[in-house]
């Protein structure tokens, strides 16, 4: 059994008037890429704050690489890299000066520091921008620098809090590739996100968090198999009558049916089977189908199934 990079037992955090984290248990194994999913206000950032030593828990225990964050903060933080959601560097300094400053905080010095700065700039694709003042960077460049700072001291565990907020699709995929490479080389990664596709692509396992509690933990595939619902959206050539409506509802793989007139949505765990069954109906052939759209089950639908609510979508650039 792999040893745990992170071991959380009955962790709680209360603020006046609010219970941000309510007795969660969590384990992240060495070398794992783990996702913490949930909407805003779920308690993800508070959990991260406790893991990184920024705030103390009200109760419960947190072990990182076998050490307690509260009793051995210096040792724990030495092996931990953190990438916050906000751009946490000095806009008035150059990328190199920022990296040098943060590297020194982790005890890096001399040739090793310079080598790590070069590597970090390489990973972040900022080598030719090293001496440029960060305030002049684009958002994508800032986001990459933000991550590069977290990687400077070659941490065993990297914690990222919503690392791709405000990043365009191209840069996002570049970041995913970088993180996947780092994970392949043995780095344990804990990522918080509300992007389902991000968690599905990157994470070996995910925990879904809502209102301070962890609802479930498993691999994305297993969660989708268990809870995910796909959608089949059909547009018919003529308004659907009562008999076709009843026939669609009675299809074995259909869990729910919504719609009116020509536009209908079938909720199903097996979209392809549902489409075949739908197209085999005589009533479908009588009315005729103009278009079919299939939405495969995903973690979003898992979340909806488990909480009855949608995760908020942020504007994607």
């Amino acid at each position, binding site marked *: 059994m792999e040893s745990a990079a992170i071991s959380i037992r009955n962790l709680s955090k209360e603020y006046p008037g609010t219970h941000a984290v309510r007795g969660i248990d969590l384990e992240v194994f060495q070398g794992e890429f783990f996702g913490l999913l949930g909407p805003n206000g779920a308690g993800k950032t508070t959990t991260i*704050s406790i893991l*990184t*030593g*920024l*705030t103390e828990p009200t109760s419960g225990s947190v072990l990182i690489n076998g050490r307690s964050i509260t009793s051995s*903060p*210096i*040792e*724990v*933080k*030495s092996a*931990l890299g*953190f990438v*916050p959601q*906000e*751009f*946490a*560097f*000095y*806009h008035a300094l150059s990328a190199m000066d920022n990296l040098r400053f*943060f590297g020194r*905080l*982790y*005890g890096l010095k001399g040739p090793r520091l310079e080598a790590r700065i070069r590597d970090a700039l390489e990973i972040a694709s900022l080598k030719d921008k090293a001496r440029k003042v960060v305030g002049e960077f684009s958002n994508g460049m800032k986001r990459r620098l933000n991550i590069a*700072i977290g990687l400077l001291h070659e941490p065993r565990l990297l914690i990222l809090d919503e690392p791709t907020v405000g990043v365009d699709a191209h840069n996002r995929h570049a970041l995913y590739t970088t993180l996947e490479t780092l994970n392949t080389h043995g780095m344990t990664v804990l990522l918080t996100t509300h992007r389902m596709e991000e968690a599905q692509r990157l994470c070996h396992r995910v925990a879904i968090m809502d209102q301070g509690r962890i609802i479930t933990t498993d691999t994305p595939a297993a969660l989708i198999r268990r809870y995910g619902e796909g959608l089949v959206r059909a547009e018919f050539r003529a308004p659907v009558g009562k008999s076709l409506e009843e026939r669609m509802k009675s299809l074995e793989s259909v869990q729910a049916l919504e719609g009116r007139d020509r536009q209908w949505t079938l909720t199903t765990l097996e979209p392809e089977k549902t489409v075949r069954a739908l197209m085999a109906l005589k009533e479908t052939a009588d009315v005729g189908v103009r278009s079919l759209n299939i939405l495969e089950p995903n973690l979003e639908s898992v979340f909806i199934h488990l909480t009855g609510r949608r995760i908020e979508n942020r504007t994607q650039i």
Partner: protein
Amino acid sequence: MLYQIFALTVKELKVLLRDREALILLFAMPLFFIFVMSWALQGVYEAGTKERPIKIALVNNDRGRRAAAVILDLDGMEGLHLIDSAEGRPLTIEKVQADLKKGLFPAALHFQENFSEAVGNTAPDSSGKEAPAILLADPGVNRQLLRSIQDTVQGVIRYHVLTARLGPMPQAPGLKGSYAGHAWLEVRLVSDFEHQRKPTATEQHIPAYTIFGVYFIVLTLASGLLREKHEGTFRRILTAPMTKSTLLVGKLIPYYIINLVQIGLMFLVGWVFYGVKLGNPVALSLVSLALAASANGLGLLVSAVGRTEAQVNGLSVLLAVTLGALGGMMVPSFIMPDGLRLLSRVTPHAWALAGYHDVMIRGRSILEILPECGVLAGFAVLFFAVALWRFRFD
């Protein structure tokens, strides 16, 4: 366009009104100035009036009666109050000199044994003899004030010299006049310098300006910390493997260095351009080190208490100017009303000013300025302690 201006104005007011503490400071600041400055300046405008006479110590060693006549005239003047005894005993020159050092009086008048003789002597002889009346003063006394005391006393003495030499003149009742041309009154500053020297106005004021300027570090330090917290870099730094005290020390050292450079530059300018004498460099440095520590402590305290930029700015300026006024940077403390003078002792500014004056214009030794340095260090410790108690790292 007008509508957009209206929308912007409404938004700005709403944001401002939400920051209650900042608003309190904005309105409290001018009110504070009115109360404090009016109270402090009361001494300036009323000093030397019937309501607030200037208190001068008196030692009369005259063998004759002429000093007593001068004293009678001086005492009858509105705006002057001569004090010749303490605890039922007549003041001696030694006691008066000690009291001057302590700042109990701005000046003291000493009529020497030969006063009557010198005043009545019709053959003026000014060859190297000491003046028959000495006006002792603290080197830190405001020069204009000292000048006015000197002129007043000198005027009365000259009148009595005139009447002494001309004798009674019933044909000219109420005669006014003076007999000048001789040094009847000598001004002597009570300092530990080997050679008597009169401090210049610049030497008196440069320490005050320096202290005033040093405390503006409070604003820079506090707003810098707040900005780091708001920009997220503070949070990031806290995830690095170091203690919170390491973080704070690392943050404070640059501001401490800036303060010391500030102080050095101010005194350098004073020395180069105005010939200011700086006194014992070690003593000067000790006062400066303690002063900078207290200013940085106050800066950290403001950063711990202020939650928004407006609060930090308001509180910093309020403290810098109010403490400066209370501490005697704008108004000499000895002409403040008694209550305010007592209050000024609760400011680090007053102690820093006393320390600098002791070194630069009173020629005190390192040992003698240690109490002032100790108090300043005490202020620093107090500010840091409260700041650390209130400081929020998250």
